[in-house]
């Protein structure tokens, strides 16, 4: 019987599911936008991914859930934190990765990996959404555009306006004030992206600067976010082809490693991040400071 491994990442705004075959190749990957943590959205993502792979739930050999809502995922073997899963996923997707920057809907993380791709240290935002996807939603609402339009606007901005709020809610007031003062939407968008990058660099400082750097999570799909992070870091920042699924991919890899079948403890088999599942050639974007705009 062929083995199949399921990884589920139930985040604050999206559910991501990855199915791997026995060799670790992705059979299916699904992302469902939920708006808020939802069992229904998660179940939908799981069903769709399994359908795409031509599988039933019973065909899954081992499964692992991660993300804020990981404890809500039903019929799963085990849970792991996003830290471990993003580290595992990024190290496999982009071999050699030493620093993972994961910016999701409501939190951001800097994950330092050792030379074997194992999590060495991590730091997370503490108490505000000002460096996360939620902040970009606030920006889009304030300057009246769609989320997908933000990157294009931000990359056209020239001015560096001060966005000082440490709170996404207060920041909205700040942005509206800028609009009232006649600032261009492009400049406001660029400034918000720069502010997010600055906070992310501060987070990275807590774990120590390393490279290569890989950016994961939903915000990594925003080319401007990656660009300003690269600018802030004065370093290359690589974005995998599907940055949103890296956590679920890492979870599925951990299931394949054997972590889904038994609790991992001293002396037991666990993560082997040394075996890359995919070539780094799949990364679709590598940005450097002053790179493409």
């Amino acid at each position, binding site marked *: 019987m062929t083995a199949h491994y399921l990884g589920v990442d139930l985040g604050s705004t999206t559910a991501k599911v990855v199915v791997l075959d026995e060799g670790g190749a992705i059979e299916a990957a699904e992302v469902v936008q939920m708006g808020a943590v939802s069992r229904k959205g998660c179940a939908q993502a799981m069903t769709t991914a399994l359908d795409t792979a031509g599988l039933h739930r019973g065909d899954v050999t081992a499964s692992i859930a991660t993300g*804020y809502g990981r404890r809500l995922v039903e019929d799963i073997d085990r849970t*792991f*934190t*996003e*830290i*471990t899963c993003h580290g595992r996923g990024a190290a496999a997707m982009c071999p050699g990765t030493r620093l993972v920057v994961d910016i999701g809907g409501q939190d951001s993380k800097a994950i330092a990996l050792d030379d*074997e791709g*194992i*999590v*060495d*240290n*991590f*730091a*997370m935002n*503490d*108490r505000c959404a000002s460096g996360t996807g939620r902040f970009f939603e606030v920006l889009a609402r304030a300057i009246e555009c769609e989320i997908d339009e933000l990157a294009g606007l931000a990359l056209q901005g020239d001015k560096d306006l001060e966005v000082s709020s440490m709170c996404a809610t207060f920041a909205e007031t700040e942005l509206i004030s800028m609009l009232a003062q006649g600032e261009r939407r492009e400049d406001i968008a660029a400034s918000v992206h720069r502010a997010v990058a600055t906070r992310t660099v501060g987070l990275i400082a*807590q774990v120590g600067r390393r490279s290569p750097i890989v950016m994961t999570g939903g915000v990594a799909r925003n080319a401007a976010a990656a660009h300003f992070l690269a600018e802030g870091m004065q370093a290359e920042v690589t974005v995998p082809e599907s940055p949103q699924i890296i956590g679920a991919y890492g979870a599925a890899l951990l299931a394949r490693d054997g972590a889904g079948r038994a609790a*991992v*403890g*001293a*002396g*037991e*088999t*666990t*993560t082997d991040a040394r075996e890359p599942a995919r070539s780094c050639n799949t990364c679709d974007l590598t940005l450097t400071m002053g790179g493409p705009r």
Partner: protein
Amino acid sequence: MTAAATDKLNRLAINKAGGKMVADYWEDVFLARERGQKVVWYNGSALNPIFQAAGMAWCHGEAFSARLAAQHLEGPAQLAGSEYGYVGELCSYARTHLGAAVLSQKRSAGSANGPGMVGLPEQEELASRLPTPDVFVNAYAGCSTGQQWDDISFRVFGKDVPIFNVSMPFFWSNHPGEGYMVGEEWERSSHYVADQLRELVPFLESITGKPFDWDAYRQNMAYIKKASELRQEAMKLCRHLPAPATFWDWIGNVAHINFLPANQDLVDFYTAVLAEVKQRVADGVGSVTSERYRVYFDGFMNWNHLGLLSRKFAAHDVAVVAGRYTHHAFWQEPQLIDPEGDVLLGQAQNNLLCPMNHSTKTIEELVLRDCDFYNVDGIVFHSTRTCRAFTNPQRIVAKGAQEKGLATLFFEGDIADASFYKDEVLESRLEAMLEGIDVRRARV
């Protein structure tokens, strides 16, 4: 956290009896005025053996704030402190205690039902029961807030209550040969503080109108020395696997060594603590029933969440085996006390050895030495939001720990303000740290 998980916590039984000793102490303090005793409010260092020998009742500010927070009764006091004008982002020990001062002052002045927050019915609760002070004594090592705190307390009571301030030098340890309890700086500072304590004695005599009882003081210090030796011996036994007691147990009896009366009861209590710990070692009984990990706790106690945190770590099979707060703050160097000799010097030296009063280099050495001794897997840093003095060196200490291969995590919380703690943040980070430890173990 499941109900079954909470059963993994196996607290020291003796602490339950110890809880009554603490409750009795506070009841005694609340009735000090009825007994005609003079009352001293003090912050920072444990000067209580001196106050005891002076025949006074003593109220330790932080201890009262911690007690209110641990009993979830801090709300009225913190509101009163805020209403008086103390900033919510600053020391929550101070805010809580200042609120208690406001409530006590109002109750004493017979205006308990006045307007505003302090007119809330809750003021009738514990927060307002402190007897008003006859004198303030401030002896705060390594903290910039203590003197400002007492300055505000002084104003709450109409600038009528005298203050004695003991200046506590910070240990810079910048010169060769200087460090923890060694060097010229150590010697100079020790005598500087001992001299001030000598001056404190006639000041207290002027308050009480009675001669200071030096014999009683020497006896108090002998009790403290013995109690501390017993406590230290019991703490060190937690090196055993499984750990017979944890940081939470030492928190559970920290009040005793910190401010309860120095007497035979105190010695008897720690004798019983040591006996229970020894018995657990002999029986192979742990404070966490299925210890798989052991960590060090760096940071002030989060008093609002003592029960939650102790159960949380146990539920994850984590023995929090020691901590900077419990192991480096309370008479932890009893050998310095010489009841028959220069007894004030040993008092001064122990008072100076506050875990916030050392250079970052020394703190790192102390913490990492403990980590070695207790053979921990990692350090949990409680980033104590309103105590910058304790939080200040933590990132640097964490780097040193990481270089030694220890896992680290930070979570934000506070000493007495519950609102700064977010459970999901710690839960996720703790899980991530333990996953990392598992991976490292599997790799070895």
